[in-house]
């Protein structure tokens, strides 16, 4: 046995009991946070004198649980934690729903397996049932639009009226793919601003290119742009660019290159004379050749022109006037540069954005998805910045994290629609499961549908209990009222889902259902626990992984 496997493996029947105990501890810690009237979880910070951390987000609580003392129990806890953390990273919300769904399905599944059913077969039928649920949730999904509706979606995540209204307005403006930066603000309030055009986080090569020292930036109107990721070492390499620009009548030039030697920069500064030719030089955005190539491709579509690529062996010696891109206005400061009114062919730009959107919708790779989202948002022209203030650094940090989670959920709602919230959408899947149950023949198949049927009521039960209501009575009232109703915990009564007042992002509901129930099905097949004493991965976030298209 190696040093990392000094503790003995755990076999059945202890496996289920230990795994269940660990999973229950995490889920029970998160359970109070579900719903619009959550309870607070106080988390002690042993190395911090600021007192306990007050949390109402299942995802954040899951992240904070590093390890349980009993190694047999720890595996179950970490299994759930990993599932919730991943969900939090993917969707920004839904962790508490996933947690209670997991617990309900897993615990009932354990009883069924202990009663003699085959865990493997049960898992297969549970997976089939999950697909039925996802299909039913998809059927209930409707698009969302308008600042009020978006603010309502935001409120279901953050329970912060001011933040919700601001995010509703912002996303109504920038749309589902628009660019939103959430930054720490200097004041105590929330503030937002809209920025015209597109900008990238790369600044001027030299401070001497700053023309307006009041604003510490330079602007060029009707500028020609040279896009490249070239490393310019010799001033002579730039001469063809300057000569061609002069010959083409371009008196304002933005040069984008990955590296510029001091001597090459000197040549540009020597020729940067407002009455003769204005020149700005900025570094190529992106880290690594792949990101830079993406930038160059997008920028060339946006502004026209031809990008000069290091990987293709391009050099400026072959530059022609038609290789310049053009824009109505460009600006640059020491940290960023931007383009307003790129003069690329609009049809090419629309086709390019459409292809990126298609790729974004189809890809399951979360890293690629994030990059595509960023590229699309830039090309849409314009961005919003939300500045989050607060009375102290701690409040600002917490509110900023909350704003980021909420923004992710609202973006998801805009891209994929909304469904009745408060557990109503999950409950409305029950009739379809009942039909499957009625048609089922195998004992494992019947057990799987029954497990799922029962589990779907758990989020509503938890929401009601957390709000101090009687879950059984509300569940009975909802069963009687039918699937077009949801329970409004604030008003304490049933409301029609058609009003849209209790909508949640559909992507969050689907992802929570999928994560919680599929993980429970998988967990039922675990027979042996092997504990490693060295667990560096526990302190790290899970890999972004794949996002299943639901």
């Amino acid at each position, binding site marked *: 046995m190696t040093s990392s496997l000094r503790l003995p493996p755990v076999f059945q029947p202890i496996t289920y009991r230990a795994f269940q105990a660990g999973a229950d501890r995490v889920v029970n810690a998160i359970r109070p946070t579900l719903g619009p009237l959550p309870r607070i979880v106080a988390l002690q910070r042993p190395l911090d004198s600021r007192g306990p951390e007050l949390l109402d987000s299942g995802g954040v609580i899951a992240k904070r649980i590093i390890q349980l003392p009993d190694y047999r129990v720890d595996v179950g806890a970490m299994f759930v934690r990993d599932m919730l953390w991943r969900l939090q990273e993917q969707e920004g919300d839904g962790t508490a729903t996933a947690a209670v769904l997991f617990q309900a399905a897993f615990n009932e599944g354990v009883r069924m397996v202990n009663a003699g059913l085959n865990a493997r077969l049960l898992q297969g039928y549970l997976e089939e049932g999950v697909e039925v649920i996802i299909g039913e949730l998809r059927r209930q999904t409707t698009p969302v639009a*308008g600042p009020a509706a978006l603010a309502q979606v935001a409120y279901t995540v953050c329970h912060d009226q001011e933040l919700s209204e601001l995010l509703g307005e912002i996303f109504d403006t*920038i*749309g589902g793919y628009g660019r939103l930066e959430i930054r720490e603000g200097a004041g105590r309030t929330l503030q937002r601003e809209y920025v015209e055009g597109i900008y990238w986080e790369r600044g001027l090569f030299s401070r001497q290119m700053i023309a307006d020292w009041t604003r510490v930036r330079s602007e060029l109107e009707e500028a020609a742009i040279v896009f490249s990721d070239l490393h310019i070492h010799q001033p002579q390499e730039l001469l063809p660019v300057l000569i061609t620009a002069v010959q083409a009548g371009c008196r304002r030039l933005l040069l984008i290159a990955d590296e510029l030697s001091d001597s090459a920069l000197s040549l540009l500064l020597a020729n940067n004379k407002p009455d003769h030719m204005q020149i700005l030089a900025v570094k190529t955005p992106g880290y690594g050749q792949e990101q830079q190539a993406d930038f160059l491709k997008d920028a060339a579509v946006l502004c026209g022109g031809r990008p000069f690529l290091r990987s293709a062996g391009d050099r400026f010696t072959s530059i022609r006037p038609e290789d310049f891109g053009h824009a109505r*206005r460009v600006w640059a400061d020491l940290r960023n540069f931007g383009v307003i009114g790129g003069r690329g062919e609009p049809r090419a730009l*629309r086709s390019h954005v459409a292809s990126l959107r298609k790729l974004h919708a189809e890809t399951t790779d979360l890293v690629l998805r994030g990059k595509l989202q960023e590229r699309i948002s830039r090309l849409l022209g314009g961005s919003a910045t939300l500045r989050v203030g607060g009375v102290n650094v701690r409040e600002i940090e917490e509110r900023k994290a909350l704003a980021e989670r909420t923004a992710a959920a609202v973006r998801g709602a805009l891209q994929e629609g909304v469904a009745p919230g408060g557990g109503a959408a999950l409950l409305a899947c029950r009739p379809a499961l009942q039909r499957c149950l009625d048609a089922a023949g195998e004992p494992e198949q019947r057990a799987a549908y029954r497990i799922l049927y029962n589990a779907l009521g758990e989020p509503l039960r938890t929401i009601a209990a957390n709000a101090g209501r009687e879950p059984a009575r509300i569940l009975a009232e909802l069963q009687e009222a039918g699937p077009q109703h949801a329970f409004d915990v604030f008003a304490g009564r049933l409301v029609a889902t058609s009003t849209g007042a209790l909508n949640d992002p559909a992507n969050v509901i689907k992802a929570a259902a999928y994560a919680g129930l599929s993980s429970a099905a998988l967990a039922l097949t675990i027979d042996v626990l092997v504990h490693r004493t060295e667990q560096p991965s526990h302190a790290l976030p899970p890999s972004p992984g794949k996002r299943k298209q639901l």
Partner: protein
Amino acid sequence: MNLSTVTMATHLIMTDLQSIHALAASPTFAQDGFCCAAGAGGLRISCDGGRSWRDAYASLGLTSPLTTTAVAFSPDFVHDRTLFAGVPGGVLRSHDAGAAWHVAALSSPPPFVTTLAVSPHYAEDGLLFAGAMEDGVFRSWDRGAGWAAWNFGLLDLAVYALAVSPAFARDETLYVGVESGVFRSSNGGRAWRETTFPMECGPVLSLAISPNFAADGTLFAGTEANGLWMSVDRGATWRAASGWETPSPINALILGPTFPRQPSILAVTDAALCLSHDGGASWQVQRSAELTGVTCAVAPSGLRPGAQVILGTNDGRVLLCTA
């Protein structure tokens, strides 16, 4: 194509505008006969239904003509006497029917304003929109005093036409005709979304929105070379108007004020006037030497038989027609 010839009595007035880019008539034209013609030579005002014209910029004391590319009246003109004129790099506004003007500059470099649109509920919301050739849409919240570019999602900044929903106060919907088709905003011009108008059929030079848009969701788009298109679902889907076969650019589109109950449409090309009384299924076409080079039109009294239609041409002529 069901074509027949329509005869319109025309009355020709020569102006010194060199070319006329836009025409607009007062909402109370039937009473005051007030209308404007914008062109390369400036802005002209008529108080007699277009029969005589005077310089609207006389108070500015200009030494050279101020090219004016767009003009629009406040819907509440009878009370506020306000009109707007698009000039290179800015929008002029007058609160006394053109006697004095105030300028509001747009962003630099100076945009070429192609079209102006005023919210139907301007008296309450004070909203205005200006479309520009290379700079997209500018929006003013304060009755034309300040302007800001609002182009979120507008992937094509070459704006030729703007159309505001008559129920704007409720639906906040407006459309722009651009080089590659039609974009829609459903939040008062703060953000734009693509419609399914086929990109290859642009540019869209003119838009006309049904007066009963809230109920019928109908709008028409006139293109440069691909004829007339219509949507009956608020721009979600588009189809080519079945009766239209004229290849000329559609410079102006006007729907009758009682559309769709009386589904009259006037389409103005640079060589003909085309009138339909059945929602675009069939057209009556008038071609004549006089109608060559028509760039813009306004029908202040609607399209009922005998109503006056004012046309502007690219050589500075104003034609007064009777539908």
